[in-house]
């Protein structure tokens, strides 16, 4: 028996539906991924090395930070640790997506987790609420994730190819990533976090002058975020 309700729901059940939903993310990812590809090649990586990072790591901000740290001469271990403290936030997103899939199998768990980013998290949370049935939700999320993921990888490689053709002697490229980070800063500073920002800034400068190497990055971030979080807890009535 097919009734009208089933037909309406069927509109929102498949992989293709998810793929179509992912278009909004693709439009947002394309310029950022192209920028990443261009900068990576300006910093001495090949287009396929840039693509490889986008394929495996698949996490925008930490990829930019990764190539900046490679450029500054940080060790792989230091970059890995920094990536851990940036990307540990995925735990929070993953934790709040998991309840959509109470009966998930191992392959679905491994697959759906791969595509979880800030952007796919927001879109999935919005879209999955309206999809009936766990199997349908899995297929829709897979569509959303795959659409976003493949655009990230493809546009990175495209950016890398463009980067190969640009003149290398332009000194402005030294500032490109700093510019990007400053734009991200002004769009995420708020009354709730500017204290932490200032503390991290002062700590980072002081520690950089005192400690050789790149250790100042992690130390200042952990200290500032730790003190900031402690301060928030302290002000809350318990």
């Amino acid at each position, binding site marked *: 028996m097919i009734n009208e309700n089933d037909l309406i729901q069927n509109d929102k059940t498949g992989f293709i539906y998810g793929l179509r939903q992912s278009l909004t993310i693709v439009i947002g990812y394309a310029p950022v991924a192209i*920028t990443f590809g261009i900068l990576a090649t300006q910093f001495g*990586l*090949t287009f396929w*090395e840039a693509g*490889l990072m986008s394929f*495996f790591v698949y*996490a925008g*901000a*930490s*990829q930019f*930070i*990764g190539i900046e740290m*490679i450029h500054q001469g940080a060790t*792989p*271990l230091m970059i*890995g640790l920094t*990536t851990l403290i*940036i990307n*540990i*936030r*995925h*735990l929070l997103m*993953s*934790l*709040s997506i*998991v309840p959509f899939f*109470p009966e998930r199998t191992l392959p679905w*768990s*491994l697959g*759906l987790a*791969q595509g979880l980013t800030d952007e796919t998290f927001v879109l999935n949370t919005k879209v999955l609420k309206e999809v009936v049935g766990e199997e349908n939700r899995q297929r829709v999320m897979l569509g959303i994730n795959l659409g976003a993921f493949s655009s990230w990888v493809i546009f990175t490689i495209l950016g890398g190819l463009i980067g190969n053709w640009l003149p290398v002697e332009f*000194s*402005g*490229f030294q500032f490109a990533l*700093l*510019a*990007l*980070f*400053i*734009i991200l*800063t*002004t*769009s*995420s*500073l708020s009354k709730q976090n500017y204290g*932490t*920002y200032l*503390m*991290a*800034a002062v700590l*980072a*400068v002081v520690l950089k*002058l005192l400690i050789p190497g790149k250790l100042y990055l992690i130390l*200042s*971030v952990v200290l500032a*975020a730790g003190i*900031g*979080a*402690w301060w*928030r807890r302290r002000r809350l009535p318990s």
Partner: protein
Amino acid sequence: MSTDYLSTIVLMTLVTYGSRVLPFLLFKGKNVQGFARDFIELVPIALLAALVIPELVTPGGTIVLIHNPFLWTGVLMFVFSRFVPNLFLGIVFGMVVFWGLDKLLL
């Protein structure tokens, strides 16, 4: 491709995929609260400070104020991005201003 680059990618992948997949493997739907949540939320902004400010103030390893194109481009960049919140335009602005100041100040 260098071994350093390869190990960088492997480590970055492990920690990133790890934080994505662990809740799928272990949890039934519980949320992180309290200190840990605040800490995780504050990490990105703290990291932006730690990445940017030392590069602007101490580009060569010591504090330089006047003959420092990084610092002055950075200041202009903060002002620009406050009013023009566009990723592409902002990066172009930053690169062009840096290129100009780099010629003027050194």
